[in-house]
């Protein structure tokens, strides 16, 4: 190696020193610690809203994961969140079974249906999956309303059985979502290091190369949708428990698109801070704009486009900035 390559300007060394202190793990740790004490600082309604933020963050993560590891876009993840939420809701309201059993069931259903939906388009361009998920998103409310014996139709279900008996329900709703989010983020971070995760990434960028080293394309297409569907179902489980009610209003076509918008706004990030940003966007913007409902789609659309164009022009802007700083 030549000296030139290892030469570091003072500017960069400050930056690297800072970034070496603030490793992703440390940042996430500080963030989690802060979130753990939050309920003691905030009022009940904010605690409730934050819990929903965590739940939606899991959904945003599911969509981002599909983009990052599969190179595919889903606009129908409400199917999976609905699947998870109604697993919790139905088992709780109809049979009185608590989360110990219903969360694993939700995960299992999510993975299974993810695989089933990826199967027909396994050999095709990723666009076909997107169109399939569009149909999925539109079919979800219809299915919920027509299975009203189980789902309670428009009225929905109320989730009341505590996870840990004796603990305040408001606290449980908050911490359950937080714990789920942390677990899922951790699992996704592990996935990046595993051979399966690496194989998925290789299959996304160079399917032929992945094929030549023993990773079949079909395996990759199906596995990533299974994982993403499973995480989507966990999002639904968290939504059901933290939001206390499960009703069709939470699984509309718009909600599906909002999850995607949240994913784009967080730049398809998979780290805890990034997905929290996406989840907060999905949760808070409709609340802030609730007085002027028609502005919500406009705002979401503009945010989506803005982030995409920013992502596109960012390298150029950065280059221009560095040129300016070099000159000055």
């Amino acid at each position, binding site marked *: *190696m030549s000296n030139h390559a290892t030469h570091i300007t003072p500017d960069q060394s400050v930056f690297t020193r800072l970034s070496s202190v603030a490793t992703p793990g440390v940042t996430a740790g500080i963030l989690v610690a802060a979130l753990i004490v939050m309920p003691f600082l905030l009022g009940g309604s904010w605690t409730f809203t934050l819990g929903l933020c965590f739940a939606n963050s899991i959904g945003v993560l599911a969509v981002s994961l599909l983009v990052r590891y599969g190179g595919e876009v889903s606009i129908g993840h409400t199917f999976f969140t609905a699947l998870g939420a109604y697993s919790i809701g139905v088992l709780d309201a109809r049979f009185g079974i608590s989360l110990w059993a219903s969360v694993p069931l939700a995960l299992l259903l999510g993975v299974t249906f993810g695989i089933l939906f990826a199967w027909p388009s396994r050999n095709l361009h990723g666009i076909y999956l997107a169109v399939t998920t569009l149909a999925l998103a539109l079919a979800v409310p219809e299915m919920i309303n027509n299975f009203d014996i189980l789902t309670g139709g428009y009225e929905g279900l109320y989730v009341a059985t505590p996870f840990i008996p004796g603990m305040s329900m408001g606290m449980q709703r908050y911490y359950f979502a937080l714990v789920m989010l942390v677990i899922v983020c951790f*699992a*996704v971070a*592990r*996935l990046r*290091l*595993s*051979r*399966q*995760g*690496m*194989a998925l*990434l*290789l299959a*996304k*960028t*160079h399917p*032929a*190369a*992945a*094929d*030549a*080293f*023993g*990773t*079949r394309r079909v395996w990759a297409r199906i596995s990533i949708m299974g994982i993403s569907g499973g995480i989507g179902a966990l999002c639904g489980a968290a939504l059901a428990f933290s939001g206390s009610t499960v009703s069709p209003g939470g699984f509309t076509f718009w909600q599906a698109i909002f999850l995607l918008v949240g994913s784009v706004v967080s730049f398809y990030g998979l780290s805890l801070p990034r997905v929290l940003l996406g989840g907060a966007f999905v949760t808070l913007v409709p609340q802030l704009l609730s007085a002027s409902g028609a502005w919500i789609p406009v705002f979401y659309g503009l945010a989506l486009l803005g982030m995409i164009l920013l992502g596109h022009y960012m390298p150029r802007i950065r280059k221009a900035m560095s040129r300016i700083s070099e000159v000055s």
Partner: protein
Amino acid sequence: MDQMTNALRGEGIALSFGGIKVLKGLDVEFRAGEITGLIGPNGAGKTSLFNCLTGAYSPQQGTISYAGMPLNGLPPAARAAKGIVRSFQHVALCPDLTVRENVMMGIARNCTAGWLSAFLPLPRGRTEREEMARAADTALSDLGLPDVGDKFPGELPPGMQRLVEIARAVVGKPSVLMLDEPAAGLNNSETRDLTAVLRKLASTDLVMVVVEHDMDLVMSICDRIYVLNFGEFVAVGSPEEVRNNPDVVRIYLGSDDDE
């Protein structure tokens, strides 16, 4: 005689696309312990033959076998499991993975850690990852790239990327190594390094096949050369024989005249 049995063999390979015969019943034998070159002008069918051997295409006629095992009908992934690996003409490294991780993908097929290890910090997955990383580092330093493991492929010059790609192919100790134009896009000194690396890789139980345009490279490293033109072999033999073959000279000089 051991060398004869561990050969990659093709008999009567014929391939056509919509009535156009690309390969016209080829018999080939790539022996272990030798570096075999596959050359020919553009459109001669080199890549088609290569793809038939790796499983990307399935020929309409003929049989392909390695060490007596028939390979016909096996997809690339299944051939990879049998130790038949290839490199790509256009560098096919994943930009999201570090160089070390890219090389690790070359042995990932031997791993058995399941999905649980993928999501949870179980000892099994960690040991396997460490073993893979160690093998990848060894392969990288064998190819003269000891310090690049933590970099991303995009940070390396094209010549080094090509070597990383070869490292990925050899890290799993393949029995057949097929290189698709390994010197494409390399400058002279990079090509010289590559030549040295390939010579070093040749061993008694490895079948090595090189498809290449660079005549100097082929002539200097190959033990045997097949010359392909219009889907047929024009000449087979040692570099010396091929160089003196009047047909080969005519093909290469003739094609120069046409341009």
